[in-house]
């Protein structure tokens, strides 16, 4: 049922034995500990784990916002960071959608969306606008192009931000709890809209969340992380076929997967809580 994808899927991420220690010569907080994880091209990989376990740290390492202490990360066999290259260079092949949203408030929606291709000098203003309008029309955003972000609801802002990312034909989308602040109704609309977008533009998605339902509904696999320092504890493969819609949420398979994931998450949450008690 999937819309056939003509171009060869890109965006295989290989995380190999990655360690991230903050302030190694002082407080030495280990956020990521010997984490190994493979994400296939075009896969939606959901990351769940207790608060403060190190999920964002892992995402920042892939994005190139900070260095790693050891290990290596590859994107399609290209070394992003690793031996001799502690920090990867941020680039439009791995666009991040931030937890609190980072649309530029001083640019209109259209100028936000065309920002990437224009600063990279990849396309002319006309081409960029044409492409932006096409993507916006697909995402049901045709009538907001001249609004400023502050005029939009947070749900619409998130959709705009994802379109802004897709304008660069990235091989990976990195999402850090993008729907955290949304109410549950808006959230489920966002989920379906994200999947629709994904069916049209197959990219690899690395998606951090606290919401198990969201993780299973969207994910091809759900990686449950251990409490800090983080490393995969359990990987649940979600074998519910695409395309998915909200009916999935009431299916038996969905509940089974929820149960299976829940126990692993719960264990780690308890461990994190106990560790917090010890530190506090």
């Amino acid at each position, binding site marked *: 049922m999937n819309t056939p994808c003509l171009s060869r899927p890109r965006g295989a991420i290989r995380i190999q034995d990655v360690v991230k220690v903050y302030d190694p010569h002082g407080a030495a907080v280990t956020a990521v500990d010997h984490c190994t994880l493979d994400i296939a091209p075009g896969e939606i990989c959901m990351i769940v784990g207790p608060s403060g376990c190190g999920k964002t740290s892992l995402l920042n390492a892939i*994005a190139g916002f900070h260095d790693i202490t050891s290990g290596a990360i590859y994107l399609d066999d290209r070394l992003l960071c690793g031996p001799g290259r502690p920090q990867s260079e*941020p*680039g439009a092949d791995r666009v991040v959608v931030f937890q609190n949203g980072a649309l*530029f*408030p*001083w640019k209109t929606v259209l100028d936000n969306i065309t920002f990437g291709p224009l*600063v990279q000098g990849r396309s002319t203003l006309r081409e960029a606008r044409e492409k932006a309008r096409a993507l916006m029309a697909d995402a049901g955003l045709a009538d907001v192009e001249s609004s*400023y972000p*502050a005029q939009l609801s947070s749900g619409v802002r998130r959709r705009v931000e994802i379109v802004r990312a897709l304008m660069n034909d990235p091989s990976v989308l990195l999402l850090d709890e993008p729907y955290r602040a949304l109410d549950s109704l808006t959230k489920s609309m966002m989920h379906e809209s994200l999947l629709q977008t994904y069916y049209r533009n197959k990219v690899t998605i690395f998606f951090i969340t606290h919401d198990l339902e969201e993780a299973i509904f969207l994910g091809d696999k759900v990686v449950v992380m251990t409490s800090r320092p983080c490393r995969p504890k359990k990987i649940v493969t979600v074998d519910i076929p695409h395309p998915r819609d909200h009916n999935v949420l009431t299916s038996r398979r969905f509940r089974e997967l929820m149960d299976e994931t829940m126990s692993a998450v719960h264990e780690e949450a308890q461990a994190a809580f106990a560790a917090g008690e010890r530190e506090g």
Partner: protein
Amino acid sequence: MEMVASGAIGREDSRLAMIRRRLALSLRSPAPYLALLGFALFLGFWHLAVEVWQLPRFRAMPSLGAVVGDWISRDPIYGLSLFTPEYYAHIWASLRRVLLAFALATALGVPLGMAFGWSPAFRRYVFPLFEILRPIPALAWVPLAIVMFHGTESSVRFITFLPAFFATALNTMLGVSSIDESYLRAARCLGASRWQTFRHVVVPGAMPFIFTGLQISIGVAWFSLVAGEMLAGEFGLGYVIYTGYTLVTYPTIVIGMVTLGLVGYVSSAIIRLVGRRLMQWHARNLGIEG
């Protein structure tokens, strides 16, 4: 061609309609009447305190009648009114000094503040010095300024410039450092170079603070201008006030003060307006949030 013209006229029309609508709206709200009432109460108190009650501290004050009478007289008793060319010469002298100082303060303060905010290394070298110089009141610079510049004109300009410059630089720096890290990260993710990030993220992101800085800047410019003109001027509103004092022409003092208030208000209103124009994206200007 005709289409374009009619389009422009249409825009002009809707423009006018919008202004008229706003005016009607603001006349319906209580704000303008309350403001008028405030003025009336103040003026009434002034009149009563000086002429009717003759309160102890007010007895020697110029009365409302004397001030207004002189101000709008074609032949003012004390030599300065709306009809004398000297009045405008004084306003122009002060305005010119303030505008020059303000322009220079902006031209130097904004880039310096940007550099402070953008380059930690530069900040480490220069900021401590800046922070020691900044609290020195402009008036304390007067003697050195006169020695340095020989003439009074340049020294008045210099002490007008100085606090305006500090206010602008400091606020610009705060503006740059107030920019949310995720905007900078987003720009890098989307492939912006350092310069593009500066131009598309840092400058517009700092703009609200910069304009706050400019408001403060023009305020302190007027403030120290008057101080400078009192000490070292030969012309200007500060000079008018000071000579009014030495020549015991008290209504002139008040005419000078009120004029300062008006000119000062108009100058900062203009800056506010320009700021609004440049920052239409700002939530406050979109009419969202407060």
